[in-house]
Structure formats: structure tokens, C-alpha cells
């Protein structure tokens, strides 16, 4: 990157090519998505043994399932025999085993090879060695995280640490009891934009007053252009007339009991790099997982989590869900508006970050650092 001479108020973004170049995206796949902890599913998506999901993590398709002992397992979705995809559906359920549809190599829910035509004539084929390739799994906050690295980094530092740094307190996120909340609604967005545009958008609120009329109504301080994820432990306060975190400011649903007075009527946002965004409000939690598929395409799965009793009672969640659904649509439209321009001559050297966006520069440094790691 050639150094640009910029006025002191602004700092440079990444050059446009970082959002379009397939080679850079390939590096991000290996050095970020396949090297870090990656949040793939809600544990309740895998309701019982044999339930499975397939997810894209970097270049790999990963098969996530629940084994007989109720533990969650993840494997590379590749038959060890001739390489066929074991499952191609996004989700489903097997009764007892995963069977490759090509030659019927059959693996149990722990990934061990249990049957194959003529397998008894190949006693030298070790059934664990030729089982599905295991991927590291952790469960936290009711979500399933996988790591494709041979030696996964510290989950405590990389994942739990990120949430702690943003909230300024290890226990702050615990009070929302996220693991025991229920998915009240899930919306999947197919966003035609680079994943970094989505992260950057989530990290700043300079755009809030322009594109989020409903959100700034609920959180008036978001209209000042300065709200950002650079403040530690700061929750944006609800407006005086606002009764709940809903599209029209009407009352929400039952408050999560652990949420303390200091967290009540406030909104907190956390980014857990590289692909998770969490929003905390007194009566629900909004949890985004990004799946970057190409330099210009990202799937975002967003869950709205509420108290289980609230969901089970069939409570109308519409006004609560609608607020952040609109925010998502507004944000993703903005990202999609930027994506085609990333290859413009006008953006070859990138754009600029204003002071309330300067903390995004740290994200850019982090990305550049990761891409450089292990090169040469």
C-alpha cells in the first residue's frame, strides 16, 4: 500500500482491491476463517443425536452433528474413500450413521468408519484412521464453534476475551444467560458484499442517523454520529419515551432475569472476530453469524433469542424482531451499495475513516496482520 498524505482528521481504509480480489479472499479463507474459532450453529439446531448441519468455513464444508453421547461433533464433509461430499443439504437428520451415497462407506456419529462393502476383507484399514476427519468443537453461549486449525488458538482469549474487552467485564455477558435462551426467530440474509464491509458497518454508527430511523428513535444517542464500538462497557440508553427495544418503541417482552439495573434500558454491541456480532438488550439477544462465501458474497444468519417461556407461550415477537431486521436490511443494502464501487478507479487507494470510525483502522491492521502471518 502506498502511503497517502491525509489530513489529520481522517485515516485510510483498506484499498478497494481488498474487497474484490479473489487471491486476498483466498488468503482470508486460510489465515482467518480456517485458522480461528468460527461460530457455525445454535446447539439447539442439533436437537438430538443424528441431527446435522453442513456449513461453509473458509474453503471447507463442515458437517456438524450430535453424537449418541449428546456431545457435538464436527467433521470435514468429505468421504475418506474417494472424496464424495457426505451430505449436501444444509440440515437434516440421520438415524444412526452417515453413509456416503457413492460407495456406501458408512461412518458412525463419532466419525468412525463402521461399514463399507468388503470392509471385512480389509482388516488392515484402521476404522478410526479412515474415519471422517475431526474438527475441533467448543460450545459457548449455546452456540457451536469449530476450528479447522491443527492446533486451535485459545478459545478463552480469542472468543470469550473479545466479549469481555468490549463489555469491560467478564460477567456482563453472563447476566443474559444466552445459553438458555430460545431462538424466537431466525432470518438468513444473502448479502452481495465482502464480509469486511459488513464488519466495518457493524463497528460504527456514523451512518445510524442517515439509514436507521427506527433505531435512532429508540437509541437517541446513536443520532450524534459518535456512537461506536470503541467505548468499553458502554450501553446506549433507550430514549425517555421508549418502552422497549421494538420497532415502534412499544413495550418488549419479559426481561431476562439476570439483567441488572445498570444494564436495563440499554443496548450493547459486541463483535467477536472474525464473523460474530452480538447485540444485548434487556429482553432479548440478537446473534449474527457470517459465512463468507466469496469476495463479494456473505451469508448472514441472524437469531433473535428470548426467554424460553416467552417463546413457548407464543408471545408476539414481531415488534422486537422487526426493529433489528430493518436495521439489518438497511445495513446490508448499504454494504451492497459499496461492493460494486470497490473495484472503481475512485476507490483504488480506498477511502477514509472519520474520527468516530478510527477504531475500524485497528480492524484493518488486524486483517493485514493475519494475511501476513506465515507468508514468505
Amino acid at each position, binding site marked *: 500500500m502506498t502511503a497517502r498524505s491525509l489530513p489529520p482528521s481522517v485515516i485510510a481504509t483498506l484499498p478497494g482491491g481488498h474487497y474484490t480480489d479473489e487471491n486476498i479472499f483466498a488468503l482470508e479463507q486460510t489465515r482467518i476463517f480456517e485458522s480461528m474459532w468460527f461460530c457455525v450453529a445454535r446447539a439447539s439446531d442439533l436437537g438430538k443425536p443424528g441431527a446435522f448441519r453442513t456449513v461453509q468455513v473458509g474453503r471447507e464444508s463442515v458437517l456438524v452433528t450430535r453424537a449418541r453421547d449428546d456431545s457435538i461433533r464436527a467433521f470435514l464433509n468429505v468421504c475418506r474413500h474417494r472424496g464424495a461430499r457426505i451430505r449436501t443439504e444444509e440440515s437434516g437428520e440421520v438415524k444412526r450413521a452417515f453413509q456416503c451415497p457413492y460407495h*456406501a462407506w458408512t461412518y458412525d456419529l463419532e466419525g468412525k468408519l463402521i461399514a463399507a*462393502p468388503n470392509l471385512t476383507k480389509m482388516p488392515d484399514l484402521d476404522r478410526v484412521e479412515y474415519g471422517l476427519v475431526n474438527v475441533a468443537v467448543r460450545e459457548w453461549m449455546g452456540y457451536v464453534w469449530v476450528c479447522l486449525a491443527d492446533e486451535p488458538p485459545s478459545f478463552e482469549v480469542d472468543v470469550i476475551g473479545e466479549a469481555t474487552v468490549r463489555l469491560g467485564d467478564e460477567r456482563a455477558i453472563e447476566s443474559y444467560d444466552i445459553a438458555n435462551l430460545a431462538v424466537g426467530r431466525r432470518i438468513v440474509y444473502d448479502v452481495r458484499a465482502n464480509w469486511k464491509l459488513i464488519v466495518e458497518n457493524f463497528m460504527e454508527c456514523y451512518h445510524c442517523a442517515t439509514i436507521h430511523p427506527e433505531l435512532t428513535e429508540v437509541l437517541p444517542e446513536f443520532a450524534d454520529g459518535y456512537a461506536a464500538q470503541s467505548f468499553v462497557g458502554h450501553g446506549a440508553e433507550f430514549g425517555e419515551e421508549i418502552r422497549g427495544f421494538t420497532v415502534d418503541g412499544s413495550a418488549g417482552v419479559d426481561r431476562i432475569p439476570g439483567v441488572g439495573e445498570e444494564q436495563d434500558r440499554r443496548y450493547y454491541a459486541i463483535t467477536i472476530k472474525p464473523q460474530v456480532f452480538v447485540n444485548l438488550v434487556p429482553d432479548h439477544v440478537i446473534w449474527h453469524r457470517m459465512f463468507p462465501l466469496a469476495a463479494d458474497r456473505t451469508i448472514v444468519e441472524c437469531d433473535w433469542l428470548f426467554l424460553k417461556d416467552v417463546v413457548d407461550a407464543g408471545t408476539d415477537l414481531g415488534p422486537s424482531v422487526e426493529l433489528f431486521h430493518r436495521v439489518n436490511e438497511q445495513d446490508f443494502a448499504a454494504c451492497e451499495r459499496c461492493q460494486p464501487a470497490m473495484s472503481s478507479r475512485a476507490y483504488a487507494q480506498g477511502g477514509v475513516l472519520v474520527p468516530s470510525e478510527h477504531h475500524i483502522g485497528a480492524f484493518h491492521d488486524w486483517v493485514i496482520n493475519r494475511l501476513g502471518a506465515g507468508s514468505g
Partner: protein
Amino acid sequence: MIPVCPLANLPRGEAHRLDVDPPIAVFHTEDGEIYAVDDTCTHQDASLSDGWLEGCEIECPLHASSFDLRTGRPSSPPAKLPLRTHRVVVSDDTVYVVPSEEPPNLPPGVRAGTV
């Protein structure tokens, strides 16, 4: 009469593959019955002792053919031919089988004496 294993090594719900020619699978059902049948599915070469035991039925792990352990008859396709059943004797806490003298229904490509 061939010794299989001590009864204690074959808990309910489990199977033991006896490495004779052709191999024999011995099952201990959840109800406490012990049955012995040919281990090789009559449809394609797969080991039924690796399959799934439910009641008196064993399901082949490869293509889900099911057999009734009491009669050896297929109860679910694609297998069409029955397994041989073998008499089981439990004596002094040891499981034995008395192999059937009938010719086995081995799948295509598998012949006795080639194990």
C-alpha cells in the same frame, strides 16, 4: 460346538463376530436372548455384527436390509435370501455355537474358503 466368548463379554445389545469361515455373528438382544446367524449380509459383503440390533432384528449397516434373528429371513430389502441360523449353547458362563450344516447364502463375490 465352537466357543465364542465368556457370556460376560457379550452384554445385552452387543454383537460378537466369530472369525470362522464364513464368519458367524452372535447377538445378545436387549431382552436377553442370544442368537447366532451368518455375519455376512446376503445382499453385499458387509458385516452384520457392525449393524444395528433392534429387538430380534438386525439391520445391515450398508444398505439397511433387515433380518429376523430367530429365522434368518430377510424382513426388509434389498436382501432377498435368508441367513443361516446357528444353534447357541450357553454352558458354564461361556457362549458356544453349533454351526449349521446347510450351505450359506453368501453375497455375489464372496465364497466360503476365501476369507
